[in-house]
C-alpha cells in the first residue's frame, strides 16, 4: 500500500501559495500590512485590495493620488452660496461618485428630514445623475446626532456600497469616528454638509475634519445638464485643485477642465502605479521581489 503514503507526501503544485510556505490567509494579511504602510505614508490608497473610484473625467481622476477617490474613507462634499442650505448641487456631485460605488453595493443616503414625508431628495433627479434609485435606501434623520449615528451603523454594514449623511455640524472627533468606521469595514463614506443657517456655514466649513478629501461644488451659469466649479479644498496625499465640470444633456461624457496646471504631476504619477504593481507582486511573487519594492512603498 504505498499509494496513500505517496499521496500524503506529494508536494502541492508550485503555483499554489502553500508551496512557498504561505498559508492561504496570509495574502490578505500581507495586503493589510501594505495598506497600513501606504496609510502611514499617506499614499492615498486606503485598502490595498480596493481600487479607487473614478468619475470618468480623467483630468480630475488623475489628479487624485492613486488615480481616483479612495474607498473605505471619509469624503466631504459641500455646496456654495445658497446651496449650502439646499444641498442640491452638492447632492448632484455626490450622486456621481455614489453611482460609481453602487457596483459594490446599495447606497444608504441619510437625508436631513423630520420624517419620510419631509424627504426632499428627488430620486428622478438623482437618477439623471446616474445614481440608480433601485439601489438607494433613504433614512430621514432629524438631527446631526441621529445622522452621524445612522452613518456609523451603515458603515458597519459591509454589504453597502457607500453611506452618505447630510450633516450640519461635524467636528474632528465625529469625523474621525466615521473615518475609522469606513476604514475598518471598507465602505466609503460621504458627508454632505447642509447648513440651516448659511452664516454659520463659513465658520464651520473652515474647521478641520478627518476627511480624506473635501470638495466644494458651486453651480455655474450654464445651459448644460451639469455646470459646476468643483474645488478640491483638501486631499490627503494630494494637492488641492479646481475644475470646471460640465456634461451636456443626454450625454454620458463628463468633462473636467483643471483651473490650475499640475506642478506635482510627477509625484502623483509616481504614486499611481505603486498599488498596481504590488497587486501581481503579492499574488505570487517571491519574497525577494517584495523586499526590493519595500522602500518604494514607504517613500510613496
Amino acid at each position, binding site marked *: 500500500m504505498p499509494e496513500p503514503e505517496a499521496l500524503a507526501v506529494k508536494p502541492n503544485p508550485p503555483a499554489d501559495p502553500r508551496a512557498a510556505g504561505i498559508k492561504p490567509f496570509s495574502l490578505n494579511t500581507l495586503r493589510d500590512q501594505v495598506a497600513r504602510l501606504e496609510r502611514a505614508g499617506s499614499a492615498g490608497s486606503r485598502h490595498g485590495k480596493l481600487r479607487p473610484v473614478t468619475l470618468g473625467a480623467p483630468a480630475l481622476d488623475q489628479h487624485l493620488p492613486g488615480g481616483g477617490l479612495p474607498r473605505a474613507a471619509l469624503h466631504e462634499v459641500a455646496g456654495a452660496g*445658497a446651496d449650502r442650505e439646499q444641498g442640491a448641487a452638492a*447632492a448632484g456631485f455626490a450622486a456621481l461618485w455614489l453611482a460609481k460605488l453602487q457596483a459594490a453595493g446599495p447606497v444608504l443616503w441619510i437625508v436631513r428630514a423630520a420624517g419620510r414625508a419631509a424627504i426632499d431628495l428627488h430620486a428622478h433627479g*438623482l*437618477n439623471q445623475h446616474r445614481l440608480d*434609485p433601485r439601489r438607494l*435606501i433613504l433614512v430621514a434623520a432629524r438631527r446631526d446626532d441621529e445622522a452621524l449615528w445612522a452613518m456609523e451603523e451603515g458603515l458597519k454594514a459591509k454589504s453597502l456600497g457607500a453611506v452618505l449623511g447630510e450633516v450640519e455640524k461635524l467636528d474632528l472627533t465625529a469625523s474621525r469616528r466615521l473615518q475609522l468606521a469606513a476604514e475598518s469595514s471598507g465602505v466609503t463614506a460621504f458627508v454632505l454638509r447642509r447648513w440651516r443657517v448659511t452664516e454659520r456655514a463659513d465658520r464651520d466649513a473652515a474647521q478641520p475634519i478627518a476627511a480624506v478629501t473635501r470638495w466644494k461644488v458651486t453651480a*455655474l451659469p450654464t445651459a448644460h445638464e451639469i455646470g459646476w466649479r468643483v474645488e478640491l479644498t483638501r486631499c490627503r496625499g494630494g494637492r488641492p485643485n479646481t475644475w470646471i465640470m460640465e456634461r451636456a444633456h443626454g450625454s454620458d461624457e463628463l468633462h473636467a477642465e483643471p483651473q490650475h496646471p499640475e506642478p506635482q504631476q510627477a509625484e502623483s504619477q509616481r504614486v499611481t502605479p505603486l498599488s498596481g504593481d504590488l497587486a501581481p507582486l503579492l499574488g505570487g511573487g517571491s519574497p525577494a521581489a517584495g523586499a526590493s519594492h519595500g522602500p518604494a512603498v514607504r517613500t510613496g
Partner: protein
Amino acid sequence: MAADPRALACGIAPGQGVADAQALMPDLLVLQADRGGDLAALHKLAEWATRFSPLVAPDSGDGLMLDITGCAHLWKGEEKLLADVLRRLRSHGFDVAGAIAGTIGAAWAAARFSQCKDGSIIPAGAVSGALAALPVQALRIDAATADGLQRLGLRKIGDLYPMKRAGLAQRFGTALLTRLDQALGCAAETLSPLLPPPEHRVGLGFGEPISAPESLRRVSEILVERLARELAAHQRGARALKLCAYRLDNAVSTLTIGTARASAEPRHLFHLIAEKLERIDPGPGIEFMSLAAERTEVVTALQPGMIDPDEAAVSAADLAPLMDRLANRLGAERLARPVPVESHVPERAVKLVEPLSDHKKIQWPKLPPRPTRLLPNPEPIEVMAPVPDDPPITFRWRRILHRVTWAEGPERVAPEWWRPASADANESLETRDYYRIQDESGGRYWVYRAGLYQGGKQPRWFLHGVFA
C-alpha cells in the same frame, strides 16, 4: 350591589337594593361602583396573568379565564399552578376562587360555585359528575332562566341531565342547552384572549426578584437564545418580538421590537433587544420574564456560498440587520426606498416604500430634467414676469431676491382629472407650467405657474425644486 365579607355576615346579599341593605344595617358604607375602573383593573390583572399562560381573557367582569393547555408542566402540575395563581392573587389582596376544568363552562362553574376554597380541579371525564351537584346558576344563564328552572324544581345542574332537550329548548330557549353543552364539553367554545396568542414564547422565572440591568441583559440573552432555538427548529424567523417583565407589584413592563426580515439569528435579535432594554422598568423587582415571537415568517435560508439568482434577495438578507437597527432606534417610518409612480405630478412621481420591499425589477422612466431636491410642498414665490405667459425675470424665495439669467420651458403638467378631489384639490387640479430657471449666481430652480393664464388674474408662482 356587591358586598364585602363583613357585610355578607350581616345578612346583606350581593344584588340587593341599597335601601334594603341600609335597612338591615343603618351605618353601612355605600360606595359607588366604578365599573370602568374595575374593568381596567381586571384588564391589568389579565395582562399580569399572561405569565402563567399566553391565552388570558377577562371574563364576566369579575373573572379571568386562562387556557393552560400545555402550561401546567412548567409549574409541575395543575395543582401547583392553581395554588400558585391563587396564592399570588391573595397576597395582593384579592378575594379569589379558582378552578381548573376541561371546559370553559365547567371551570367557570367550579370556580364560582364550588365549596372548596383552595380551588378545585375537575379531571377530564369527571365533568358531568362534578357539575351535577352545582346549582343551575353555575351554567352562565340569565337570572330569568335560572328562576324559571328553580320554579320547576330544577335546582341543580344534575337535575337537567334527564330532561328532554326539546322540552327545555321550547321553554327556555336554546341558550340554556348551549350553555349546558358547553359546560359538559358537548359543544365547542373558544376563549377570546386579551391578546392574540404568540406563535412562540419562552419564559423564565426567578427565585429572587431581579432588577439590575446586567441581570436583565443576561436573562434577555438566555430568552433570546431559547426562542431562537425554538424558531430555528420550526424553520421560522421572528418579525416582531415582545419581551414582558412581570413585576412584584403585579405590573407588567413590556417592550416590542420589529424586524425588517424574519430572523432567528440570536445575536441580531439580542442586539435589537439590548438597545431598548432600558425601557423595561424593573420597579420593585421582576420575578418572571417572557419573550414571545408575536409574528413569525418562514425563513428562507440562503446557503452560504450559493449564488442566489435574485441579487435583490441577497442584499436584502445582508441589509436586514442594519435596517432593523435603524428602525429600532429611529422608527421604521424613517426608512424608505424610492419607487417610481406613473404620474405627471412631480411630487407623486416617486413613492417611498419600505426599504426592503421587493421593487428592484421596476424600471425608472426617462423624464425631462428633474431637480435633485424636490420640496415636499411647493413654496409660493413672488415673481416679476414682463409677460404673464413668460418665465419670470426676478423672483423672491425665502426672502432672497434672485435675478433670472436663463430660463427654459415650459413643461406643461396637466392635472390628473381622474384623481378624486382631495384636501389639496386646488393644487393638483390645476395645470402647471414648469420652467427651469437659473439665477445670476448659478443656482438652478424649478418653478411653475399654477393654472392657465387668464387675463386680468394675477398668476400664482411656486418654487418646487432645486437642480444640481
